[in-house]
């Protein structure tokens, strides 16, 4: 496996973990205690997860051309 493929795999796994973290944060905020830091973590995780999806698509096209 080349670095290109490993990087794409890494981005996919990272995105999944970040969305999982987002769900964990929301769950903590709404079900356990209304701790503001959980909500902030969830928001950051979802935003960065979304950014990684866009980045993943762009970098896939860039690396394919190399």
């Amino acid at each position, binding site marked *: *496996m*080349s*670095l*290109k493929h*490993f*990087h794409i795999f*890494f981005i996919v*796994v*990272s995105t999944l*973990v*970040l969305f*999982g*973290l987002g769900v*964990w944060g929301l769950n*903590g905020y709404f079900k356990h205690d209304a701790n503001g*830091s959980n909500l*902030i*973590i969830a928001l*950051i*995780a979802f935003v*960065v997860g979304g950014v*990684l999806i866009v*980045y993943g698509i762009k*970098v896939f096209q*860039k*690396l394919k051309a*190399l």
Partner: protein
Amino acid sequence: METIPYTVTPREDTGLINAKLGIWLFLASEVMLFGGLFSAYIFLRLGAVSWPEGSSILNVPIGTFNTLVLIGSSVTMVLSWAALAEKRFDRFRLYLGLTMLLSLLFLVVKGFEYSEKFSHHLYPASSSFMAIYFTLTGLHALHIIGGLVVNGYLWGPGSKMWASDPERFTNRVEIAGLYWHFVDLVWIFLFPVLYLL
């Protein structure tokens, strides 16, 4: 002087350059090392009468920050290799330098996290959870330091090879990138297991 074979062209039997085969064999041994410790974590947890929720002991915002730092470092690592593939050496140094800065930031934050635990009298001997936490994250931090040394060499004295054998140097950076991605991937698994579950 006889040159080392298969540093640029792949071997016919493996279809890979030797360094790539070597790093994957090394990473396979690393999977077994971390896999063994993950198994230890699972058995310790299953055998424990009670097990603390990671988020009740560890600092999730700091863990999240460090996760983002390492994801960023993987991005800059692959960009440094891509810059060499595009023959842009200045960009390579910029991106690899950023990778090293991010890995240093990770270590500083980790050190801060450790000192916070020590100030609360939480040591490896305090509980099974703390023992496996310090073992897994400590071993991971050692791997980060190892990657930092390799990347530092490629950024500094090792980069002289770019002038004499650019293709081989590009391959070296790719090999270092594979190692770096593996180390980051270990953290991507460690973070939810230790901090969230």
